[in-house]
């Protein structure tokens, strides 16, 4: 089967799962942003998803995507290391046009996985997991307020989102290139589309984080009057 034993097939699996995960993050970010405008709206979304069957199916699907993306990343990285040979260059230079992210995708991915573990512990373990066990899930807005009132969580989340930005800015155009939907003109277009979309995506996450941190720590009211949804 060419998705297992050819280099392009393996890369295709990476790109399809990667793009699917970017799509998920887009939905996730949109739902997070509701918490800026309306606490009630955010509670409704939490309840709508909860531990209903479609949310369970979605979670399992996401977990599968993550696992496949990670296993293939590990597999490809190991075979690529082997292809590089045992003897390394004594002097290396980064040629022009080579991005930092493209050389460090695996390390960035590891940081993303670590951040995800923290995130699952902070939220998922107190919401869907509790509901699955038959308990009463934690309130979404309260969890946001609690988590982002702690400066160390905010810092860790910012590092996580920074790594995610680097990972996705390379990952987006790289995925399209692997599928083959690129040429000299579209390469530049995809790169711009990727940079703009991913920056907006990460800014959405950072916006919620920073707004709640400022509200909880400094009681900045202009943010709440701006959005009208903080901490109701």
């Amino acid at each position, binding site marked *: 089967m*060419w998705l297992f*034993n*050819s*280099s*392009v*097939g*393996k*890369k*295709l699996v990476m790109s399809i799962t990667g793009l699917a995960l970017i799509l998920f993050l887009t939905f996730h970010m949109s739902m997070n942003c509701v918490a800026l405008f309306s606490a009630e709206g955010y509670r409704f979304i939490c309840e709508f998803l909860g531990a209903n069957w479609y949310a369970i199916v979605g979670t399992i699907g996401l977990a599968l995507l993550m696992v496949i993306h990670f296993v293939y990343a590990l597999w*490809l990285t190991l*075979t*690529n290391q*082997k*292809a*590089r*040979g*045992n*003897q*390394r*260059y*004594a*002097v*290396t*230079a980064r*040629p*022009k*046009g*080579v*991005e930092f992210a*493209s*050389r460090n*995708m695996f390390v960035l991915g590891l940081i993303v996985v670590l951040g995800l573990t923290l995130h699952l512990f902070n939220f998922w373990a107190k919401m869907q997991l509790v509901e699955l066990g038959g308990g009463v899930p934690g309130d979404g807005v309260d969890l946001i307020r609690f988590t982002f009132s702690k400066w160390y969580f905010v810092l860790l989340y910012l590092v996580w989102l920074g790594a995610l930005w680097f990972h996705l800015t*390379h990952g987006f*155009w*790289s995925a399209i*290139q*692997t*599928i*083959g*939907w*690129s*040429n*000299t003109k579209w*390469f530049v277009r995809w790169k711009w589309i990727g940079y703009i979309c991913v920056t907006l995506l990460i800014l959405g996450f950072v916006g919620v984080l920073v707004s709640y941190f400022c509200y909880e720590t400094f009681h900045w009211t202009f943010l709440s009057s701006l959005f009208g949804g903080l901490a109701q």
Partner: protein
Amino acid sequence: MDKNISFTLRVWRQRGPKEKGEFKQYYMEDIPGDTSFLEMLDILNEKLINRNEEPIVFDHDCREGICGMCSLYINGHPHGPATGATTCQIYMRRFQDGDTITVEPWRSAGFPVIRDLMVDRRAFDKIMAAGGYVSVNTGGVPDANAIPIPKKAADEAMDAAACIGCGACVAACKNGSAMLFVSAKVSQLALLPQGKVEAKRRVKAMLAKMDELGFGACTNTRACEAECPKCVSISNIARLNRQFIGAKLSD
């Protein structure tokens, strides 16, 4: 006139594929700036031979940038510091007086060292033999204008055909991938009507051979494109991916 420079050369010496290699230092004095890099190595080799030492083994042939024989990884760059040039097109005026210049062979599992700076690049010939050609039925020579080819396709095919198969893409790649080479060789035929007939079989066979020979997978790092002496674009890799996926889906 360029001025003369003196510098230290750190050269990788390795007696055979299985032997352990090491760097040896040579001090080069008063080398004119308009000496080419390979001529400079010739000067060094002449000195070594006169001293009854083994000369440094390195690949070279046409010395005008078209044969793809010269290699050499100089100061962290395949084919040295210039862009769009092969090692034989590098002149000593690019370096400064008192520099230390490190010269290494291509390093990749697909290109084992034969001796010193010479590596075995027969893997590329094997990939070509797997499908990098158009099967022809012999007969009368057809008229050149019998098959119309759009200018854009002809230009792109020509740009891909500029690949001289030197292996700088593999040497530059952190994954030891030969994707730029394979994609150029697939593209130069896939863009033309004569090559389209066997396009599917070709792309599958050449990629399978590349994987089989132990080259890595592409991570779109673009080091190959930046270091390619013929400036072959990674848009060829996109075409290779597109053709390979298309061929597999239509199986």
